[in-house]
């Protein structure tokens, strides 16, 4: 796979070995009787020989082989070590160096075969008598003497060595050093300490107003962060380290099972912390074996299914949103959901009435239950029913997620999402019963504040079990103080609920207060506390005190909210997928007392700065002349804080964010543009203030999201009839190759309140729809690879999607209509850049579809 890297590794190692050889040989000359030293020399030569053989470096192999023969005789005491023999071996070392240098520069061993020295070694090994005659040859000018003066008399061997070292820079050896893993771990620990100390300093800093301290702590902050990243990187290893042994595993499996399997590996250089590499080693091997055994069929079965006889097993690793994704996919038989259910019932893991209600996705997750195996026969490779559950628990132990996708007859894919590192994680600090706890950010979905006194109003009881109505679905709720047996807090004005994700289920956890998010260093608990499943570890907070890190899964189980509520699973999966799509670019800015506000960058047309003097008043509002037009301006701070508008001091220049909608433009005046962030928004909280959509965490800081429609309406009253209405909650998939056009369409649909998914080609579109149901598709006619009609055909052949309306887009709508593509499965078609018409069309389609879902039979007739 990465021969270059391996050879490089070999070079570095060999250079180290050779340096040691030099020393050892000189030592050996002084103490010829030292058997241990001799054995070490022998081993070193042997190692180099072995590796040469592996790379088929024949010259090197020959030289080292002869040297080894000679050394073995010395080691076995068959002959005595003489200075001339030492010289000969030192020469061998030099010759080896030369070949290595040649390999390093040209990748090959070079023309010089070093036959002379090989011959001398052989002769020395064959007859002890030859040693003395050797002396003469040895002292004669060496025939292979090249750039470096080869001086082979015993007295000079050391000089020749040092000359060697001085003259020849060994790039491979110099560019890398080997460091003990223990040292790196120690460094990581120290960095952890530094992070904690940094946190303490920062907290200290906020308590006082010292400019010098402030500046210093800011620098400390930056340096610590960089150091942390740097040290983290030193512990990173490419995932290829684990993958290296998989080709062999696959080959052996293929032979044993009489299958033909081609292994594809993509992203082997994706890096992970070494502790994580360790942790995923076994699960990966297991998944690969599973795919070979259960996934890929035998060649004759494949041929009958119309597939090529050779099965494909693909491994893919890539970074995404601060995590590493690893996919193990095969083009085999896929998972038979029916059989999975049947097996689960047979094993008593599921009741048949449960099975009927279960969706395919949920059923697929059954394979992760302990004691489950669909293999008809137990083979020596898999099928013993210990496996997938172990894989899942191993991955979850390191904070990862396992997901399985499968299509019967077409193959399955197991997707692992794994954090980059375990040592330092972001966490949310909360209070309960007077104690402080930390919740790992990965399990956090959202924060909900329940206001207005009695929580009973918000939390309802179902047979004594508290639940919360969250956007129409019921969320099981637990009280953290009850779970932990803490005293309950006094009845507060408002309580906070943290919505958590454990495995594929969600629950709400009522806490007394929410503090903030922090980078925390995870420290293990002593063995006395290992038995407590509710804690994942502990950390040291800014004030130097210890805080416990909650184990979300343990809390959920202990509270009994995770027992049987499988129903939540599907919602959770969808939530996750949505979260994946919510990664978007955000423009961050400041206005009034709102330190951090955000709008999606896709909505922003331009950022401008106008001198205060250029702002004029017209029609009761502020305007500015902009590109031969009058641009109405909205003073954001006045909208957000009407009560504070009095203390408005006018700066010299005004920062304006310009938004366009069709022909109309509007400018929003802000105090300062901060940054553009591209990030997954993980936490959200509904806003109570007008003009804001809600809050989320962007760049580790809480940020308010602007409700643009409301802002502009309230201030200018001008814009936007394309309000929400029917659009809310509907999902539209844009299938279009051009990023630019996709962005245009997206911003349109975004503004109208649709949830938008994007796909650049047919495959991606299908994948998106598999992950999440959509209400309408907007597809470009020239969608790669073979046009939108292929998408339409693919969708119509599928029960779930055959009713999803498709809007075709082309440069000219007329052409589309006349060519009759509408008949070919599209609901409607519009010109690509006619945003208004496109929106109208989508709205119509979604409405019609919603109606048809209500009355499915009639809808069928209509179509």
């Amino acid at each position: 796979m990465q021969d270059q890297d391996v050879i490089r590794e070999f070079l570095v190692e060999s250079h180290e070995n050779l340096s040691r050889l030099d020393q050892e040989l000189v030592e050996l000359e002084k103490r010829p009787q030292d058997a241990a030293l001799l054995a070490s020399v022998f081993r070193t030569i042997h190692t180099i020989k072995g590796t040469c053989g592996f790379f088929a470096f024949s010259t090197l192999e020959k030289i080292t082989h002869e040297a080894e023969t000679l050394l073995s005789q010395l080691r076995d005491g068959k002959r005595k070590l003489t200075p001339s023999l030492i010289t000969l071996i030192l020469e061998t070392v030099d010759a080896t160096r030369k070949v290595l240098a040649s390999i390093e520069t040209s990748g090959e061993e070079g023309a010089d075969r070093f036959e002379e020295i090989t011959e001398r070694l052989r002769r020395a090994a064959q007859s002890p008598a030859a040693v003395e005659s050797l002396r003469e040859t040895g002292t004669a000018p060496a025939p292979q003497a090249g750039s470096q003066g080869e001086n082979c008399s015993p007295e000079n061997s050391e000089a020749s060595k040092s000359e060697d070292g001085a003259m020849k820079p060994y790039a491979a050896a110099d560019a890398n050093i080997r460091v003990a893993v223990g040292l790196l771990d120690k460094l990581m620990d120290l960095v952890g300490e530094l992070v904690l100390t940094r946190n303490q300093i920062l907290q200290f800093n906020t308590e006082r107003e010292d400019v010098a301290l402030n500046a210093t702590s800011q620098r400390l902050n930056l340096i610590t962060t960089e150091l942390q990243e740097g040290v983290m990187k030193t512990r990173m290893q490419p995932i290829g380290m684990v993958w290296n042994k998989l080709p062999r595993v696959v080959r052996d499996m293929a032979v044993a099972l009489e299958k033909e399997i081609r292994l594809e590996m993509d992203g082997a250089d994706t890096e992970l912390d070494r502790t994580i590499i360790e942790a995923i080693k076994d699960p990966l091997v297991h998944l690969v074996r599973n795919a070979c055994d259960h996934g890929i069929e035998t060649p004759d079965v494949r041929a009958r299914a119309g597939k090529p006889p050779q099965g494909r097993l693909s491994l893919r690793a890539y970074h995404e949103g601060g995590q590493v994704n690893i996919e193990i996919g095969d083009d085999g038989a896929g998972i038979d959901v029916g059989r999975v259910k049947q097996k689960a019932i047979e094993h008593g893991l599921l009741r048949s009435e449960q099975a009927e209600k279960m969706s395919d996705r949920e059923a697929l997750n059954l394979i992760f239950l302990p004691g489950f195996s669909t293999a008809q026969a137990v083979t020596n490779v898999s099928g013993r029913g210990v496996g997938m559950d172990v894989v899942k628990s191993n991955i979850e132990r390191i904070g990862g997620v396992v997901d399985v996708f499968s299509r019967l007859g077409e193959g399955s894919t197991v997707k692992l999402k794994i954090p980059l590192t375990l040592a330092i994680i972001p966490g949310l600090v909360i209070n309960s019963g007077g104690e402080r706890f930390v919740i790992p950010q990965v399990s956090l979905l959202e924060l909900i504040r329940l206001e207005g006194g009695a929580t009973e109003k918000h939390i309802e009881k179902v047979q004594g079990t508290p639940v919360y109505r969250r956007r129409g679905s019921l969320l099981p709720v637990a009280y953290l103080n009850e779970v932990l047996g803490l005293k309950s807090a006094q009845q507060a004005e408002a309580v906070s609920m943290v919505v958590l994700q454990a495995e594929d289920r969600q629950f709400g956890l009522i806490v007394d207060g929410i503090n903030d998010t922090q980078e925390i260093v995870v420290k293990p608990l002593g063995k006395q506390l290992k038995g407590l499943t509710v804690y994942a570890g502990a950390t040291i907070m800014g004030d130097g005190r210890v805080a416990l890190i909650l184990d979300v899964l343990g809390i959920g189980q202990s509270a009994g909210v995770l027992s049987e509520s499988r129903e939540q699973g599907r919602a959770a999966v969808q939530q996750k997928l949505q979260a994946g799509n919510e990664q978007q670019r955000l423009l961050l800015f400041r206005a009034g007392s709102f330190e951090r506000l955000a709008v999606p960058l896709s909505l922003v047309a331009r950022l401008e700065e106008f001198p205060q003097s250029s702002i004029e008043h017209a029609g009761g509002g502020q305007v500015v002349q902009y590109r031969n037009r009058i641009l109405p301006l909205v003073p954001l701070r006045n909208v957000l804080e009407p009560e504070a508008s009095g203390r408005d001091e006018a700066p010299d220049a005004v920062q304006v964010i310009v938004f366009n909608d069709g022909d109309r433009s509007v400018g929003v005046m802000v105090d300062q543009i901060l940054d553009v962030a591209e990030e997954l928004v993980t936490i959200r909280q509904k806003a109570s203030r007008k003009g804001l959509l809600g809050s989320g965490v962007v760049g580790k800081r809480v940020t308010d999201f602007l409700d643009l429609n409301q802002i502009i309406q309230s201030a200018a009253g001008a814009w936007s009839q394309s309000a929400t209405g029917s659009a809310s909650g509907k999902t539209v998939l844009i299938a279009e190759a051009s990023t630019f056009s996709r962005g245009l369409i997206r911003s349109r649909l975004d503004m109208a309140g649709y949830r938008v998914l994007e796909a650049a080609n047919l495959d991606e579109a299908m994948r998106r729809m598999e992950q999440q149901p959509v209400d309408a598709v907007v597809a470009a006619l020239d969608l790669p690879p073979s046009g939108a009609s292929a998408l339409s055909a693919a969708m119509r052949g599928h029960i779930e999607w055959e009713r999803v309306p498709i809007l075709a887009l082309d440069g000219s709508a007329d052409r589309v209509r006349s060519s009759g593509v509408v008949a070919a499965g599209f609901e409607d078609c519009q010109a690509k850049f006619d945003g208004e018409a496109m929106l109208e069309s989508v709205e119509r389609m979604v409405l019609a579809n919603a109606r048809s879902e209500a009355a499915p039979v009639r809808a069928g007739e209509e179509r």
Partner: protein
Amino acid sequence: MATGIANQRSEAAQTGGQLSTFFAADLFFGVDVLRVQEVLRFQQMTHVPQAPEVIEGLINLRGQIVTAIDLRRRLRLPPRAGNQTPTNMVVRTDDGAVSLLVDEIGDVLDVDTASYERPPDNLDPAAREIISGVYKLKDRLLLVLDTERTVDIAAVV
């Protein structure tokens, strides 16, 4: 392995050497001086809800998180008087540092193997489990605490 080391240690105690001594209630204890990492005055602790009751909490020992075990509760002795703050005696164990909360720290004593004896059979079971032997000093008895077994509270719960 843990018990192996523990045995070695208690052997070391038997063969005499130096013991670091301390008090809990009216009892006089000693542990192998090499096992004691440091002694700290009472530290602010983080309570661990749901933990076994012998665990008093967690302390931050220069960035290391150390579990504090109340020796009185471990030995089922009566609780300390309200105004008495215990002292942390941090001992090295196979599982890292653990703090034992004791009433008061005594001197380091040289003990003589000749005065060593197995713990009496009529000792309270909770105590006998973690006391490996007794040195008969001139004026009182010195109980040798087996730190490995003291911090192994799985047996207690």
